[in-house]
């Protein structure tokens, strides 16, 4: 009896030491915990496993919080899974749930980093799905519509920008379109998605014209015009819906001014020109022509 009690006390002492070292030296704390979880008298104790998970969490916070693939996170998850299976009391159960939530939130932060810093769409998708998966463990009936809209809007904004700057980046264009269409599937009147998708179509039309080289034959010009007009009309439909919902939306007013100019719809063009002027929007009128020195440069002239 005395021996058992002494062993028990030794394990509790180790546990206590590990908890003390949790924040200051989680690596050392973990070494201690590894022996505690192997001991026959504590290996089936949910508390032991939960403490171990928190020690891993401290380590994870310091080193791998922003990693999409983290061995430490995997250890936390396997540890809290074991803790959950050991029938924890209600307090422990709640603590485990908080742990899931914290890891889930961590994935959400990774989504942001992957999108903003490395434009890693596939990675961000994986992180976003993991965010949802972990949150579902705590809130099985959680409605992710707001998260889906927020995520897809961000993806749509970032990748439409890349595509608008260089229409040869068709993969970015496709990612943006799919993301924005997902938003519109969930929320057809979402002004941000309508505006972004509309701008994508309009800017694509403008870039088609920009990219057309002098010397193109009339048939080619005709075909490009067909595509431009098709895109401008798609754009008009989307951006018009934003304007119809909010006739003070300056971005939609400015975009419609340019769209109607492209569509040579003079009455509507004049209507939106007037609105732009009333709202002091810069419509680039009377902008200076390109500088003489650039224009008169005879280099590379062809016939």
């Amino acid at each position: 009896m005395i021996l058992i009690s002494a062993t028990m006390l030794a394990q509790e002492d180790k546990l206590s030491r590990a908890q003390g070292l949790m924040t200051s030296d989680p690596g050392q704390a973990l070494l201690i915990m590894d022996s505690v979880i192997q001991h026959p008298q504590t290996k089936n104790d949910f508390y032991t496993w939960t403490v171990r998970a928190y020690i891993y969490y401290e380590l994870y916070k310091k080193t791998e919080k922003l990693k999409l693939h983290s061995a430490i996170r995997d250890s936390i998850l396997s540890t809290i899974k074991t803790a959950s299976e050991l029938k924890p009391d209600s307090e422990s159960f709640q603590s485990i749930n908080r742990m899931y939530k914290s890891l889930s939130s961590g994935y959400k932060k990774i989504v942001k980093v992957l999108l903003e810093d490395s434009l890693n769409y596939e990675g961000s998708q994986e992180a976003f799905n993991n965010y949802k998966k972990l949150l579902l463990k705590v809130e099985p009936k959680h409605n992710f519509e707001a998260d889906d809209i927020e995520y897809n809007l961000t993806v749509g904004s970032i990748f439409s920008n890349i595509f608008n700057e260089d229409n040869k980046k068709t993969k970015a264009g496709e990612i943006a379109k799919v993301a924005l269409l997902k938003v519109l599937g969930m929320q057809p009147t979402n002004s941000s998605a309508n505006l972004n998708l509309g701008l994508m179509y309009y800017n694509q039309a403008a870039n088609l014209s920009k990219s057309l080289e002098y010397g193109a034959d009339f048939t080619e010009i005709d075909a490009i015009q067909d595509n431009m007009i098709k895109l401008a009309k798609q754009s008009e439909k989307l951006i018009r819906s934003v304007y119809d919902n909010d006739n003070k939306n300056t971005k939609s007013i400015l975009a419609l001014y340019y769209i109607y100019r492209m569509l040579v719809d003079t009455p509507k063009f004049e209507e939106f020109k007037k609105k732009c002027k009333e709202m002091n929007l810069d419509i680039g009128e009377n902008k200076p022509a390109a500088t003489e020195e650039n224009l008169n440069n005879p280099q590379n002239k062809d016939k």
Partner: protein
Amino acid sequence: MNFKSNTIFVRLVKSLKSINRYILFILCLISLRFQQGPSSFDAVSKTKVLFIYGFTKNFEWPDEKKTDNFIIYVVGKNDNLVSELKKMAAVKKVGEQDIEIKNTTLVDNNINPHIVVFTSDNDPKTISELSSKMKSKGSLLISETTGGCKAGASLNFTYIESKLKFEYKEDAAKKAGLKTKEEFKKMAVKIID
């Protein structure tokens, strides 16, 4: 069994809540930051310039106009068109001739152009007056006004379902001393007698 680390959990949850707000805020900012505006590029002016350059390949000017610069003269106000023409002139030639762009709001009779482009703010009367003066002078007159060809322009820009097209008056081009291939007629949306 009591948790010694209970306070850690509370702290953790609080910090997670603030992290969530922070993430949401940042995502909103990214979304706003990346919302690009519409391109101010004037595709219609570019299309007109593509047509005008196309015309230089389809017409033949008299020999006396094959020296010096090839002058494209814009009458009226259309800054975007002039700007696009200048961009084209910076990289293209007509035969061996450099392209020079001139622009005045009112007609300047001292200019001896190869092409005159009347902007849409010109009325048929202005076109008619200039076409009378320009007869046999080797100038291709292009207008963008209803009845432009009837007023004396050889070519008139018109729009059909938002698409830029052109009408052609062969007689006016011949009177100006310009030659063109027969196939050119097929490119016109309408032939004006």
